């Protein structure tokens, strides 16, 4: 048996990591799910948006947490959102490329009617149509057999209903 040759490379001649400029492939990265946030992703698979509502102070909260940030109570109930909200802030991602996202794509923090804010992206909204205060409505998008919340502009939803 022959041993592999011992590397005599000095630090100055270390190989460089490969550049990763190729277009991203593969599905969107699935969220991590544990006992604290399972209610949310289970709800999304059923095409509902669910927030936590504190049993004691009745505040609605997101992101999920075992204890209420307002009163520290650990007792809570799920509350189903109407999915209707307004844009609190937004940005348009041009770089980097990510699997499951088509640049440029808008990301935003939405203030929902129930009072909770959540950061979300949209595959349906043109970033140039966005402004702070814009009315948005949750929609849903399936990627790799998993449902994600998506967003559309509510004015367009309303027009479609007419």
């Amino acid at each position: 048996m022959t041993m592999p040759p011992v590397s005599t490379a000095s630090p100055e001649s270390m190989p460089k990591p490969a550049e990763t400029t190729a277009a991203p492939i593969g599905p969107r990265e699935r969220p991590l799910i544990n006992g604290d946030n399972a209610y949310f992703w289970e709800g999304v698979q059923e095409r509902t948006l669910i927030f936590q509502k504190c049993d004691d102070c009745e505040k609605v909260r997101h992101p999920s947490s075992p204890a209420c940030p307002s009163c520290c109570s650990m007792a809570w109930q799920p509350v189903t959102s109407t999915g209707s909200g307004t844009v609190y802030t937004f940005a348009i991602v041009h770089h980097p490329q990510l699997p499951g996202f088509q640049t440029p794509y808008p990301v935003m923090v939405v203030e929902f009617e129930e009072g909770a804010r959540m950061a979300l992206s949209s595959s349906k909204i043109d970033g140039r149509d966005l402004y702070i205060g814009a009315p948005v409505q949750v929609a849903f998008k399936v990627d790799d057999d998993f449902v994600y919340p998506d967003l559309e502009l509510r004015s367009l939803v309303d027009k479609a209903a007419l």
Partner: protein
Amino acid sequence: MISGRPVAICGIGATEFSMDSGRSELRLAIEAIQAAVADAGVRASDIDGLVGFTYEGNPETSIVRNLGIPEINFYSRIPFGGGAACGTVAHAAMAIASGVAETVVCYRAFNERSGQRYGRDQGREALYYTERWNRSWYRAFGLNTAAARLALTARRYMHEFGVTTEDFGRVVVAERAHAATNPNARFYGRPVTLEDHQNSPWIVDPLRKLDCCQESDGGVAIVVTSLERARDLASRPVVVRAANQGIWQGSEESTGYYTSESAFLPDSAVVARHLWSSAGIGPDDIQTAILYDHFSPFVLMQLEAYGFCGRGEAPAFIADGRIGPGGAFPINTNGGLIGEAYIHQMNGITEAVRQVRQTAANQVPDVENVLVTAGPGIPTSAAILGVDR
């Protein structure tokens, strides 16, 4: 407030800053620490404490082994990326003031440009275990970089006060003007105009490429000891007047969007309050500042959070060239993370030291006190360094 022995920075050291160091991160750390120890006029074997970042790739054991340090009895690491920078000085200062340690080195070394780049997706495995779940709320929606997450905060700041991307551009122009006359800066000799800024492509709208800090390879180290001992060493002591960290209740690592304060850098406000109180001085006592500039809008927001002007007033505050070369309040005189290099602001701390020593490439006259801040929009830290009287 740090009680106990007064503390000083007695040495600084760095490698060259580059886009491809051609050597290992450990070697960069060793070179930087050796340079800092030589600057202080102490021996590496005198080091009895080490403070680093949780993001640091070089463990204390490797530092001790390679520098021939017989033993250390104090070491700590600070979380939250660039928010850690001045926290390293705070931890070192507390260890020395309390008598736990005598000679503490704060260090940061990485191949952040030729190796793993923060401007790209790091993958969730780069995060600590619980933090993976927190960050998963954002990764699920394509918010995988600091630029994307903090662009949301920048946009809200614009909305609150009618701030424009030209206001961001004026920060960039001032920083690049400083870098243009700093031979250690990547952008030495390469100033930009407001027009260049406005023509710069979007990374994450409202952040253009020129609004974003660089990605860099390099290492920086700082030696901290008691002021009494520093007075007997090779370099002029730089007194640590105050060094503080801060997290407020609504904070997250770049995603604290959930309260009405989110556009006002509430972590920085916590640090500022404790810092001014601890040092017993205020913004009027500061001659120059090195404000963390991962993204240019956050320089404006920090001018407000640290009390140099009121909320929403920073664009007007800087409009007359106040923060650029020869201005009434030059800041980021090394060119900042945008113009000099991105060594997680440890290079900003060394610039603050040079300003106090009167050895900076873009020296501000009559410096008594310098404010240096760590990454804002995340749990953060800051320090005030001053002249020994």
